[in-house]
């Protein structure tokens, strides 16, 4: 990656916040609410500096009351506002899933298309820093499984801003799931890819369009979120060993860009799906089904997947890294496909 002296490099967190802020400037109906989104700026930096710019009237700290304020977000959206609501950790979905699944996601359909819920529900996902079973999950597969909400999963600063602006402008409820390890926070180990070039002006990244993050010819890695950063690291390293890896960054699960996936797999004939969510009944199986439904013969090697092996995320470092999709495991899986 080359940079010019004019280019501006910011963290994913800052890029997200900037996208929200620019939409707030453009549209007075946009406002933010959630726990500690105000003066704190969001525990994972998603609302950095917004409180100072827009004040407590538009960047609203809520009680620790997820059913209450997510429901309030829905009510406000139904009345034509465009709330950006933060669920601090996606793991907290258990105390508010009725509002998310039965209300936010279903109202448009139940109403026969007569009531829109233009709301963004952003939430921090992922592990890797020993926060254990109740603060380290990804769960995007869970939300993607339930109809009625778009599920957006950015992997880098540029997409974080562009997808946020698209999410806010979308007339549908959008789950915007960012990875804590990809935010570029000063208090967490970060991949250099968590800081990147981001244009200052507003722009959109379309929801439902995957990106080919790196082109290659031998193996396709289909992945998302922080695992994109790991996969790119692996791909660059394997390049030197003569293995050409193509990395497909899904960027959203709903809608799922099957076309880009199939195109890449059709080219390489080998696929590894890397997912930090649980293995069974999730994204990895879904991609396998997409390929199988299209043409099982397009694979030269059996389908391969790397995901959390159906255990809760453990605490101790060797345990946690034992189940997360690390660079080492991705490398080994790619080499297996090439063997």
């Amino acid at each position, binding site marked *: 990656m080359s940079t010019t002296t004019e280019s501006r490099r910011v963290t994913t967190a800052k890029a997200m916040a900037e996208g929200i802020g620019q939409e707030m400037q453009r549209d007075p109906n946009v*406002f933010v609410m959630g726990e500690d989104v105000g003066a704190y700026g969001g525990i994972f930096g998603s609302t950095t500096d917004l409180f100072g710019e827009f004040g407590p009237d538009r960047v609203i700290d*809520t*009680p620790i*009351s997820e*059913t*209450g*304020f*997510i*429901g*309030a*977000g*829905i*009510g*406000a*959206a*139904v*009345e*034509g*506002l465009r*709330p950006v609501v933060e669920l601090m950790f996606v793991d907290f979905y258990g*105390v508010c899933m*009725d*509002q998310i699944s*039965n*209300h936010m996601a279903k*109202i*448009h*359909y*139940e*109403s*026969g*298309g*007569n*009531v*829109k819920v233009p709301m963004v529900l952003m939430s921090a996902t992922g592990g890797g820093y020993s926060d254990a079973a109740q603060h380290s999950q990804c769960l995007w597969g869970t939300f993607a499984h339930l*109809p*009625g909400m*778009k599920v957006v999963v950015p992997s880098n600063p540029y997409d974080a801003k562009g997808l946020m602006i698209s999410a806010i402008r979308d*007339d*549908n409820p959008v789950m915007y799931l960012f990875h804590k390890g990809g935010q570029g926070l000063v208090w967490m180990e970060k991949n250099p890819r968590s800081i990147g070039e981001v244009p200052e002006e507003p722009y959109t990244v379309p929801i439902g369009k995957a990106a080919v993050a790196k082109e290659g010819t031998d193996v396709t890695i289909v992945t998302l979120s922080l695992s994109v950063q790991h996969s790119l690291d692996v791909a660059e390293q394997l390049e030197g060993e003569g293995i050409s890896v193509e990395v497909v960054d899904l960027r959203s699960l709903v809608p799922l860009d099957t076309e880009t996936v199939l195109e890449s797999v059709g080219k390489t004939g080998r696929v590894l799906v890397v997912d930090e969510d649980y293995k069974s009944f999730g994204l990895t199986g879904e991609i396998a089904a997409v390929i199988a439904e299209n043409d099982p013969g397009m694979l030269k090697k059996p389908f391969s997947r790397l995901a959390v092996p159906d255990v809760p995320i453990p605490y101790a470092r060797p345990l946690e890294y034992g189940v997360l999709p690390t660079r080492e495991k991705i490398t080994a899986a790619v080499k297996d496909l090439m063997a």
Partner: protein
Amino acid sequence: MTELDRLAMYRQMVRIRQYEARIMQEYHADKSPAWDIGAGLIPGEMHLSAGQEPAAVGVCAHLKKGDAITAPHRPHHFALAHGVDMNKMTAEIYGRETGLCRGKGGHMHLFDPDNHFSCSGIIAQGLPVACGQALAFQRKGTDNVAVAVAGEGAANQGAFHESLNLAAVWNLPVIFVIEDNDWAISVPRSASTAGVSNADRASGYGIPGVRVEDNDVEAMFEAAGAAIDRARAGEGPSLIEIHTLRLWGHFEGDAQAYRSELETVNERDPIPKYAASLQELGDLTDDQIADIQAEADAEVDAAIEFAKSSPEPTAEDALLHVFA
């Protein structure tokens, strides 16, 4: 109508009752086999609101264009009192293309954005949504209010308490209406609710809570008027608990064997009671009673006819409207 109009309230109660009575009749008319809840022109669960008319009529008499209501699984009385189109609502209950929701919602999921009306089959979960609507009204600087309706059983849900707290903290123009019909399906209030009165619970959040006894529509009208005026003036949320009456079962087909006070249910019917009190005042004649009933009969019959003659949606339509 914000001034007390007794005849209008009586007419609305009779209209709602006639609606529920006819839906009950139609619901059972073609169930074959009779025990099959999914059979017939009106399939699925059916929760009718007979006996609870005073709650809806007393509140909705004060509402104006732009005011919102979130109702629970037993929503017809609030829908009709709030001006939801009876034809479209009936067509929805019959699962027709012309229904409020094109047949996608059914009787527990009625959405009428023109009247800011919605309901949810998940009890108490409409309360946070009403808070959000109230938040939107507050932010837009209108004097509209949101009314959140739940039963006394629902008031033991976390959503109830979270909503009261949120409404109080943010001083939202929301009115919580708790319909205490004594029964959470088959569990009496005494077995479900610590502290018993939800009017008292409101005071724990600094929200004025009033209990209206006797299922009295005029008392409800007065209390709701005070609460709605208060909300419109920016003075914040109120809670009104009305001791109302579930005249029929929890759902159609409920044998109510658990119900100890079943024998006296009809004596407590609020509509004949109100008619008698209006007659005593000289505000209602026998002729008017007959006329109002005939008017209601005709309107409801026409709505049912509209529903029955409307086309059904097709299987392909099921794939529409997931996303805007």
